């Protein structure tokens, strides 16, 4: 490796000034591009947060008028907003719990067992991921209409579990494939039955993947609009509320809620990144 670096250094010094300049530009073009791309990705988020502090004149919150903290202080001042946020949180929590349980069991069956219909099961799990959301929503509404089921909280819950399950299966499956089964065999050799082995060995080792899947499911559920819009009936989740508001005028309080969700999610993600890099650092020290 060090020999290669030395060779490159020799070659570089032999290159002409023009070639070196070209190299410099090329290396830094990519970095400049990356910086611009990050601005592009983060600018709309900055706009959302900025406009949560706007003091709009009239009904429209599109043009910057002046700074105020009132929207954050009186986030609850908009009729129906608190109920919508509460409904979103309730549905995300409930559907994540149910979908995580169903998905983990399915992943265990698919990875651990060879049985008839395994291929078909894999396809059935994959299909909802490959179907456009609008078709999922439309087909569910079609079923509910035909079966004369009243749409509302219950139908949103059912729909969310349906499309989160596949994400959970995929996440947990990835972890199970690299799972060291000797640990379970050791537990059985030491006299643990299957249930105890599952509870004391398998589940703790799987818990990071299950947690990751659950967080993903929660995030997808709380953000979902298209499917929810079809099966919501009179119930309003936060995205459905925003959609309704967007037809008239979006109050700055909506930006307050969106900014809060963003900040909470980023905090969780940053803590996660820090913990994982600390852990990686410790492993390197140990080695």
């Amino acid at each position, binding site marked *: 490796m060090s020999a290669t670096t030395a060779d490159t250094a020799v070659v570089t010094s032999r290159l002409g000034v023009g070639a070196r300049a070209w190299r410099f530009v090329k290396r830094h073009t990519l970095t400049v591009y990356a910086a611009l791309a990050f601005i592009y990705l983060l600018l709309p988020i900055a706009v959302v947060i900025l406009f949560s502090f706007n003091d709009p004149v009239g009904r429209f919150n599109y043009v910057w008028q002046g700074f105020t903290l009132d929207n954050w202080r009186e986030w609850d001042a908009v009729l129906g907003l608190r109920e919508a946020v509460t409904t979103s949180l309730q549905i995300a929590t409930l559907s994540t719990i149910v979908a995580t349980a169903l998905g983990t069991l399915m992943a265990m069956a698919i990875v651990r067992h060879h*049985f008839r219909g395994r291929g078909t099961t894999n396809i059935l799990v994959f299909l909802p991921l490959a179907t456009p959301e609008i078709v999922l929503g439309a087909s569910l509404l079609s079923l509910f209409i035909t079966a004369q089921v009243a749409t509302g909280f219950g139908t949103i819950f059912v729909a969310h579990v349906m499309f989160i399950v596949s994400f959970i299966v995929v996440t947990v499956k990835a972890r199970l494939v690299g799972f060291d089964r000797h640990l379970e065999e050791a537990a059985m050799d030491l006299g643990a039955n299957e249930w105890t082995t599952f509870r004391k060995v398998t589940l703790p080792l799987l818990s990071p993947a299950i947690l990751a899947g659950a967080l993903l499911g929660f*995030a997808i559920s709380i953000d979902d609009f298209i499917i929810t819009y079809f099966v919501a009936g009179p119930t309003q989740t*936060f995205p459905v509320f925003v959609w309704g508001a967007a037809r008239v005028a979006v109050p700055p309080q909506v930006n307050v809620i969106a900014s809060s969700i963003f900040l909470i999610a980023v905090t969780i993600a940053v803590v996660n990144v820090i913990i994982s890099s600390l852990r990686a650092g410790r492993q390197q020290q140990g080695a």
Partner: protein
Amino acid sequence: MGSFFHRHRGLTPYLLLAPGLAWLTLFFLLPLAFLGYQSLQSGSFPNYTFTWEFSNYAKAFTDFRPQLMRSITYAGMATVLALLLAYPLVYWIAFRAGRWKNLFLLFIVAPFFVTYLIRTLAWLNILADEGPVVGVLRDVGVLADDGRLLATPVAVVAGITYNFFALMALPIYVSLEQIDHRLLEAAKDLYASPAQAFLRVTLPLSAPGIVAGTLLTFIPAAGDFINAQLLGTPQQYMLGNVIQSRFLELIDYPTAAALSFVLMATILTALLLYARIVGSEKLTG
């Protein structure tokens, strides 16, 4: 409980699968079947009857051809744009970002932490007629003095590209990250120029990521109606807008159902064509 599993070992996978499979059958397969049933109904609300009305499909193709074409072209353009924008960026993260990789990846996922509708509404602020982007473009002369970005295909495609960017970027990043750096050194030792090394080593090895990213971006993009509705006008409406309004506003279930299947068939056709081009073994991994 343990002894029960021991006596019926063959049964275990089915017991584990039963609840999840039941849920997917009841709330995914069965609804699709009902949608198919509805797509062949005729009559008017609320008295639709099943009559094998295949003309609904013919009607869907002829009456809504512009929206169908827009779904394909807008989604296709957004997918290509996302690929071109994302590739250099994740290349930079994978090869140049050093130990800050995870932080920069977080930047790519960050838009997903802002509710979908709200990040689209933010583009409404950015691209607004009185906004800075339009102002600069008018000054430079790219846009006429009364030219606008909102209510044009540009705004809709830009919105779709932005909204599904991470779905393109992350799979490419994963495939770039897995590349064995010794292969690149070997290419260099064999006198490959950086461009050659990229074209002959890096690009082919990242192909699975490109394929996965393309699929993950194109499918939701083709079914989207939010960008067209918020950033466009009826002149930019896509198939999703028609399905949405037929189902929820006009209560024309048979047409909406037929259109849903047309959308799925379109996506499937596009994917099969794509598979022909890139090779089917890459699609199935």
